């Protein structure tokens, strides 16, 4: 009995040391290749990290499903939004002529674009499904400028790792990694189903991130910040969602 338990002890000890060493090496590799989400701390950090790392390895270049025009949901569903501010209503009354999208941070040429300027850029359209974390979904055609084009125009610096985007609505901000920021289907959307983007659906400007759940497709975006670290934004968890208990990465 004592022989067996000694052998078991040695095997278990060796396995334990190998396991800890392996985990350490895995963590170093994961950090190097950007596989650790900003909200990796806390009791659910292991699950969030596994999901983000696996999906990044599997899906960095995959395209969200696109649908035939016949599958567009009619009518689409506008989710509830917090009451819009007076400042927003003033811009709305002026036909959003004074709406600006500012791009700053780790870029060669920080810039601020009007809607009219954005509409002169190459347009991309996609018929994709918008899926809410609650479970419901709808399909619509989204039209806009690929975010990668705007990042090209301002000249993203090589150390850039994330793009932070903010809503006109207070305390509503998000961020995505460069894999999603440079993805061809990530749009600064200004149109929907053939017309301009209606206010209940995020008009005049919404970032459309079709490979993640709808809460990453932030409404009323006014500012993009290119950065190499999310530490100094809010509580450092990557967006306002993790501060209320939701995951930063919403590819699942």
């Amino acid at each position, binding site marked *: 009995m004592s022989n067996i338990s000694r052998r078991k002890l040695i095997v278990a000890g060796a396995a334990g040391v190998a396991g800890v060493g392996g985990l350490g090496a895995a963590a170093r590799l994961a950090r190097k290749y950007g596989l650790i989400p900003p909200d990796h701390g806390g009791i659910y950090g292991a699950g969030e990290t596994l999901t983000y790392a696996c999906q990044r390895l599997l*899906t960095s270049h995959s395209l969200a499903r696109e649908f035939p025009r016949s599958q567009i949901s009619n009518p689409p569903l506008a989710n509830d939004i917090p009451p819009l501010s007076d400042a927003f209503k003033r811009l709305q009354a002026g036909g959003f002529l004074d709406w600006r999208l500012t791009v700053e941070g780790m870029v060669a040429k920080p810039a601020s674009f009007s809607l009219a300027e954005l509409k002169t850029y190459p347009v991309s359209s996609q018929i994709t499904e918008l899926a809410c974390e609650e479970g419901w979904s709808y399909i619509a055609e989204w039209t806009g400028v690929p975010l990668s084009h705007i990042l090209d125009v301002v000249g993203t610096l090589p150390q850039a790792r994330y793009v932070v985007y903010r809503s006109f609505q207070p305390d509503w901000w998000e961020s995505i990694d460069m894999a999603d920021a440079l993805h061809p289907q990530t749009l600064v959307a200004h149109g929907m189903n053939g017309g301009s983007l209606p206010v209940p659906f995020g008009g005049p400007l919404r970032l459309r991130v079709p490979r993640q759940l709808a809460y990453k497709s932030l409404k009323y975006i006014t500012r993009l910040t290119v950065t190499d670290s999310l530490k100094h934004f809010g509580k450092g968890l990557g967006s306002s969602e993790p501060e209320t208990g939701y995951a930063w990465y919403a590819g699942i």
Partner: protein
Amino acid sequence: MADAAGVPIGVSAFPAASENRRHTLLVRLTHWITVLCFFALLVSGLEIVVSHPRFYWGETGNILTTPLFVLPIPSSRPSVVSGYGYVLPDQNGWSRSLHFQAAWLAVLTGLLYVVSGLITRHFSRNLLPAKAGLSRRALAREFAVRLRFARPDASEARSYNTLQRLTYLAVIFVLFPLVIWTGLAMSPAFVSAFPASVTLLGGRQSARTLHFLVSLMLVLFLAVHVGMIWLAGFRTRMRAMITGRAAPQEHS
């Protein structure tokens, strides 16, 4: 304890004890981790369902479309008309995180169980029913015996009957893979890499509905499983799954 000196390593010095063995350490360990994960997944899954207790068939579905069925429960979202005069608090943040973390643990545990079960021939030895037991007449006799709720005789403390074997195989190789598949089919990033995973199921909302229905079948299995253990002798069966030994007094 007897002195084990002189017995070669790897050979049990306790033939009596080995005869009395019911479940291996690996089976017991993976069983109880799965139990833990199952309850975490069940509670968090119910919390997520409460945010939208409506189910649809096809690709899209929301409060503007016709549901397949609606659960008669209150909702945690004001936009869902539930017929109740109140809205439950939103618990989706931690529920989603717990759901995915428990899913990871359950999948990794299941993988360990299946791979080791194939290596040790656990499935072919303990779970694959004998051919003779699968004839129509044998199955009918088996059903008749089980429906009388006869207390199982001593031999059944050491092996499974045909119905048990078929049920366990169905849970391990049909229901668990189905619940994992239908879950993954709801991940927008996963389906961007593997679109067939959702189109084969008939769309995103079909996947969600099937995920719910398969979970219900797993809950039904759990109820019958625990009921049968109660009927067969709760203490001896629990002891077998915790300590690994069948009870010696089973023969008396």
